């Protein structure tokens, strides 16, 4: 034993040093791997939170019906195009100067995010009443995920356009809310914010929509989300992860929701773009510049028919409240020029 000890112990320090070095490197790499996985798990967790928050909206109650303004109306339910969600709404017939009801020209009224067909903040019931008293029937409905319509992923117009297309189908071939008034001959659309973007998407795909008024729409939803996430107190670095997880969970590609990329397809049908000059003062809504981006994109079509109206002093979706009768007169003139006069009373 004693004579063997030097011969076996001589190489041992070299081997120990090398194996110790190897063990240190293995531990360094293992620590790097563990750290990177921990960071990624944490990042993914916050991304899940953002993705689900993007989908969960408020559902304020419908505070009043058209009857509160003395209007006749019928509750209607119709399936969205392609995915058959049962969309809830009101059909309000137009009123001619002689008091006769009409459904010859119908305006699809589309509300903004986290709201419903009566949206008091934008004054939708009053706007419906104004349009009805100018002889336009109004089909006001709750977009999917809002009001009394079924829950659905929020897609900032991409899927919501199916509800507008369903409304067109309903007017063309659904049960008549007022059989004595017959079918609608001409359809136009009005929408604000999310509704404004949604009617652009829908009109780009449906030629039966003869004219579009889009109030306070975004040109591209991504900047709005990228500004909105930090404004809600979550660091901006989590936004891309949230959008990727949202796409995995809900199939919604938020990088591709750009009304500006489809608006040129509406030509030669007329478009009226309205925006409040004081929009986005809280950095959470839509900058006025988006109206010009949309207009520029729409003018990309050779036969484009685009009007713009920047309303001074108006914040997000407040142009109707600020301008009042001027707003009504302007959109009534726009719709009348696009759809022609009502001939049912003649």
């Amino acid at each position: 034993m004693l004579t063997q000890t030097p011969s076996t112990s001589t190489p041992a320090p070299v081997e120990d040093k090398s194996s110790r070095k190897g063990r240190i490197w293995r531990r360094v790499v293992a620590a790097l791997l563990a750290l990177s996985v921990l960071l990624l798990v944490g990042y993914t967790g916050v991304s899940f939170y953002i993705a689900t928050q993007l989908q969960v909206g408020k559902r304020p109650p419908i505070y009043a019906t058209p009857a509160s303004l003395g209007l006749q109306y019928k509750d209607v339910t119709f399936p969205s195009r392609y995915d058959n969600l049962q969309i809830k709404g009101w059909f309000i017939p137009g009123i001619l100067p002689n008091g006769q009801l009409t459904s010859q020209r119908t305006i699809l009224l589309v509300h903004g995010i986290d709201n419903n067909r009566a949206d008091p903040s934008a004054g939708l019931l009053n706007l419906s009443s104004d349009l009805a008293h100018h002889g336009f029937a109004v089909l006001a409905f709750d977009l999917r995920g809002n009001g009394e319509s079924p829950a659905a992923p929020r897609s900032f117009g991409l899927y919501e356009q199916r509800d507008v297309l369903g409304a067109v189908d309903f007017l063309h071939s659904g049960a008549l809310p007022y059989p004595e008034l017959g079918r609608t001959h001409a359809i136009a659309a009005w929408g604000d914010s999310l509704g404004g973007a949604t009617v652009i998407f829908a009109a780009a795909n449906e030629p039966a929509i003869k004219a579009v008024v889009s109030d306070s729409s975004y040109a591209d939803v991504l900047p709005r989300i990228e500004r909105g996430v930090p404004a809600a107190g979550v660091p901006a670095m989590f936004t891309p992860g949230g959008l990727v997880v949202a796409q995995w969970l809900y199939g919604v590609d938020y990088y591709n929701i750009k009304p500006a990329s489809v608006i040129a397809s509406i030509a030669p049908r007329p478009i009226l773009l309205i925006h409040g000059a004081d929009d986005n003062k809280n950095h959470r809504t839509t900058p006025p510049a988006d109206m010009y981006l949309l207009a520029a994109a729409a003018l990309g079509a050779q036969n484009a028919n685009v009007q713009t109206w920047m309303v001074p002093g108006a914040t997000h979706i407040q142009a109707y409240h600020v301008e009042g009768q001027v707003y009504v007169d302007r959109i009534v003139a726009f719709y009348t020029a696009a759809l022609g006069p009502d001939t049912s009373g003649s």
Partner: protein
Amino acid sequence: MSTHSIEETTAPTQQPVEAKGSALHGVLIGLIPLGLLAGVVLLAVIATAIARELTVSGGFYAQQEAALITLIIGLVLAVVVFAIACWRVLHLVGLWQKAGAAVQAAATLWALGFTALVIISPILLALLLPQHPAP
């Protein structure tokens, strides 16, 4: 693997070629955890899309629940598979180091280090990529 490396030392003329082969082999072994992670995440995303489609008739909340559960289970599974794969590869590296296959062991460690960089790259990109500031 260790036998192969030990043979290298007995054939000096073949050493550069065989060392290169060992390094490549070590890199490939080191990338196995990353490949498994990517594969399981991909499967989790596909399974989530299928779960979403299968629950369409149940409405949004059923769809959301199915998608969330499927994706979370898939991602947890991916992390577990990745951790086991990393542990086994590191164990193998230890054996190679003891057997004197230093080139192969070092190549594998470099590949694992690269794996850590790839895993953290989404966070680095999210930090570095420009986003739309508040106007």
